[in-house]
């Protein structure tokens, strides 16, 4: 493989994670060179409301992920409602309408795992608030492939279950409070 893939951050969240993103995205440095992918559980409507909302707050450009989009540094991609988001070996995106995973489409595990296979140690994944077990398997895969893993501090999360579940099945690299997140992202 001769293509150079950007360093990539995938953020997965469920119930209670939207506010975390709405605080994090405005506080990033516009010079950030990461490609950022956001996978958020939500109703399976066919609207682009979420990416529109995040775009109003983000210092980095935000777009809804489209199939065959090439991941670029300094961009934020939002997985569309009702599709899983996969990453090809050449750094392009694939949408997938297969079975729900953990009752969810998009599923966080699906994107974490797909990203782990492609980016290996050039990847960091952050799991936020939620009432679901999604994300924990994917984080383990990320770690096994050499990537960095982090969860939102369950003590701070609106719904502690999801990050806490990940912490019970594995040793995550970082447990982050909201105020530490932007700095952590910029350090990647």
């Amino acid at each position, binding site marked *: 493989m001769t293509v150079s893939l950007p360093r990539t951050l995938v953020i997965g969240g469920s119930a209670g994670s939207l506010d975390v993103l709405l605080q994090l995205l405005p506080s990033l440095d516009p010079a950030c060179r990461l490609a950022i992918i956001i996978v958020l559980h939500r109703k399976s409507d066919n609207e682009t409301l979420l990416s529109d909302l995040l775009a109003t707050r983000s210092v980095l450009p935000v777009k809804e992920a489209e199939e065959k989009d090439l991941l670029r540094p300094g961009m934020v991609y939002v997985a569309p409602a009702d599709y899983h988001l996969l990453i090809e070996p050449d750094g392009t995106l694939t949408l997938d309408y297969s079975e729900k995973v953990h009752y969810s489409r998009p599923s966080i595990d699906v994107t974490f795992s797909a990203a782990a*296979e492609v980016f290996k140690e050039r990847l960091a994944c952050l799991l936020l608030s939620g009432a679901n077990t999604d994300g924990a398997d994917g984080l383990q895969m990320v770690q096994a492939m050499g990537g960095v893993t982090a969860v939102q501090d369950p003590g701070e999360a609106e719904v502690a279950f999801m990050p806490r579940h990940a912490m019970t099945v594995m040793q995550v690299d970082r447990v982050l409070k909201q105020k530490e997140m932007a700095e952590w992202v910029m350090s990647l």
Partner: protein
Amino acid sequence: MKEHVHHLKDEEVNILLNDLLEQYGYDFTDYSFASVKRRLQRVYINDRFPSFAEFRYRVIRDSTYLTYLMEQITVNVTEMFRDPAFFQALRKQVLPVLATYPFIRIWHAGCSTGEEVYSMAILLQEMNLLHKSVIYATDINESVLEKARKGIFPLAYMQQYSQNYLQSGGQHDFSRYYAANYEYAKFSESLSEKIIFAAHNLVTDRSFNEFQLIICRNVLIYFNKDLQDKVLHLFSESLEQLGFLALGAKETLRFTTVAPLFKPLAQKEKIWRKIAT
């Protein structure tokens, strides 16, 4: 990490894809690699093969297993009246035009277990067009076609389908279209008698008729750019002048080589009209 022992490597996926092509003529090499790999990985883990060599041996030697594997590799998730706004657009913008033809030919490419085909038959019946229509419903996969022919779907889904149907502009009690039997709903044979289910591989097979409407939703997302272009040309060749092409919610003709041949009819609902050859 124990759970990652059964992890297929990219090279192993390529070996299997090559086997499927050489042994059976199924060409997945222009499919989305990430998607095919994920599907194969799932089968590999679920069926608890102790090693890749045993998985491969089974695929090559056991043709019954191959049928099952084919069903697992291709994505067969679908529902009736999925994206109600799309079916509403068919009702309002496409079928009134088709109604002016003496004979209507429709192709559902990649129809899977047939939920959208039966949805289409319901629309045609409600507009009193089914009697002069033929719907060709094709898929690469024989076993899903067998399910589609039966027209039997889980009763538990009917509530959702009924809701979709009403949102798409349906005016009847949805239950008039099926007979409930234990946990299944069998759709009326008056719907299926105008449907021809047949195997067709978009990768290797050619055009087989000329249509006024081709529907192919959530199939192209699994193909790479070259194969998308190839299949879109096949659709273009298979459409009459001013025929309609309908794709999935996240699929587009933008940036494809057939884009100049079509004009958008309903942009959000992903329906185009062929204006040139």
